[in-house]
């Protein structure tokens, strides 16, 4: 005799402690098992693409801050690269190094948040690892405040460089950070990287094969965790990435643990990149002498992309010769990584759902734009 069960549909979100913002997931459960999952988006839709059509090229930089608000620096970078491609200019060397450095700092900050929340969703009470992650991230945010006066919505970069040279105290605190952060990171790794409970919770849970990952266009750590050797920093070097040496962690089967592990390793590689940038950077111009109101030639288009912490972030710009882009399309990694969510969830349990969602590391500002 079998037990008669009835599927139960629950809306996870938009108000839920672990949906990373106002995200709604309509999930049908059979007991604890998930039999259907559908993401429902749009609670944070602000129409960034439409707003961009009304603003000039520099003003849009402030809009890009608000996409992935845990990684504004890389958003700025992707956008500025797109505009530079459109104008066919190139930032000065010092600006390139500054951008690379700050983008990598931002990657550390973003990955710390991702890892912290991932562990929080595994259920460490009150988020002890999250607090440790925030403690380290705080120092990065402090440096960003020195750099550009804001901590989250940075607007540090401009088309043609960065808005200003870092102050002298930035360099000393960066040195201090580079010296002290590895031990903080080692502490976090000691805390949970090889923890048995974490292992049994994440190993072989929600695996994503390489074929599936490619077919679903996922990018960034999620793609690399599946074993696909793809990193835009290496494959299509922008800014100063061709001048630094770093390794790329590749996962094996793309389960939750691999995604977590790849992020943890990437933080170490980011540190290496920053160290090399600090060694290599030389005095020089930090910004091109471009007019305040930029105009791109009519009919030109460009697609600027970077390896953002969450994946491939691209800006497609089309200019009609005016002071603002005719069309701006944001290829947001969070949205496209999210298209794989139903595959990851179906067949797993309620507790795994939250963890898988955390392992993709979405950011609603970027999903809904």
């Amino acid at each position, binding site marked *: 005799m079998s037990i008669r069960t009835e599927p139960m549909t629950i809306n996870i979100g938009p108000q839920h402690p672990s949906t990373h913002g106002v995200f709604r997931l309509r999930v049908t459960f059979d007991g604890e098992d998930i039999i259907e999952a559908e993401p429902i988006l749009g609670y944070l839709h602000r129409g960034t693409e439409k707003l961009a059509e009304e603003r000039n090229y520099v003003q849009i930089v402030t809009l890009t801050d608000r996409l992935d608000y845990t990684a504004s620096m890389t958003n700025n970078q992707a956008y500025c690269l797109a505009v530079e491609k459109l104008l066919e200019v190139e930032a000065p060397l010092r600006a390139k190094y500054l951008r690379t450095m700050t983008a990598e700092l931002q990657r550390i900050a973003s990955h710390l948040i991702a890892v912290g929340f991932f562990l929080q969703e595994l259920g460490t009470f009150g988020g002890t690892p999250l607090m440790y992650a925030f403690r380290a991230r705080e120092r990065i945010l402090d440096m960003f*405040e020195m750099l550009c006066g804001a901590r989250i919505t940075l607007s540090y970069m401009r088309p043609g460089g960065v808005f200003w040279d870092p*102050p002298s105290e930035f360099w000393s605190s960066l040195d201090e950070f580079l010296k002290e952060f590895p031990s903080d990171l080692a502490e976090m790794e000691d805390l949970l990287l090889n923890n048995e409970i974490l292992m049994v919770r994440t190993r072989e849970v929600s695996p994503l094969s390489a074929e599936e990952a490619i077919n679903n266009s996922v990018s960034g750590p999620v793609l690399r965790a599946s074993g696909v050797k793809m990193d835009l920093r290496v494959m299509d070097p922008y800014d100063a990435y061709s001048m630094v040496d770093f390794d790329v962690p590749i996962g094996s089967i793309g389960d939750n643990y691999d995604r977590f592990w790849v992020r943890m390793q990437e933080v170490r590689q980011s540190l290496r990149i920053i160290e090399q940038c600090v060694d290599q950077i030389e005095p020089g111009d930090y910004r091109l002498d471009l007019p*305040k109101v930029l105009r791109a030639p009519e009919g030109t288009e460009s697609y600027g992309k970077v390896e953002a912490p969450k994946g491939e972030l691209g800006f497609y710009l089309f200019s009609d010769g005016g002071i603002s882009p005719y069309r701006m399309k944001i290829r947001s990694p969070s949205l496209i990584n999210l298209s794989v969510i139903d595959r990851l969830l179906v067949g797993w349990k309620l507790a795994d759902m939250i963890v898988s969602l955390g392992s993709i590391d979405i950011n609603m500002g970027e999903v809904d734009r």
Partner: protein
Amino acid sequence: MYGIEMVKGLLVTLKNFSKKPVTIQYPEQRVSQHPRFRGEEFSWYEERCTGCASCAKYCPLGIIEIVTDPSDTAVKQGDKYKLEKFDIQLFRCMFCGLCVEACPYDALFMGSGFEEGKYTRNDMIITIDDLRNSPKNPSTWYRPQLEAKNYDPRSGQQLSWKEVGRESWNWHKTEKAGMRITPDPKQD
């Protein structure tokens, strides 16, 4: 072995238990705020402002409203327009600082505070009188001349409009404001 890593994790938390808390008790203690901090309380120097409304044009949200009066003495002096209205709707401001970046005459500066909570939206509109009377603790954001002086906005001293400019205060005696070309800031 099963359990070893868990014990390792427990030891990490125990080690942190003995550490001093890293959090700051806000109203009593404060984190060090960097001079470039983009804060409220815009510092505006009327003597330098010509009413060109570059800031208003450059603001991504269009929250700065400037009304100038070309008549009266202003035209005779040939220097600048007389400002009648300079409203900043602070409740919509996102503190990107583009208005400061746009100002060709170093008349507008970001402030350094962040504790200007108000109860109504109307209170959040900074009017020209507020700008005139507000404490002049400008942030050094996009103002290299202040950074060169190692100026700290949180030290509390007010800066007069003569002190904040990158040129000597009597530059306008030799040339007319409208004809002046701002030298590229990076050459300073």
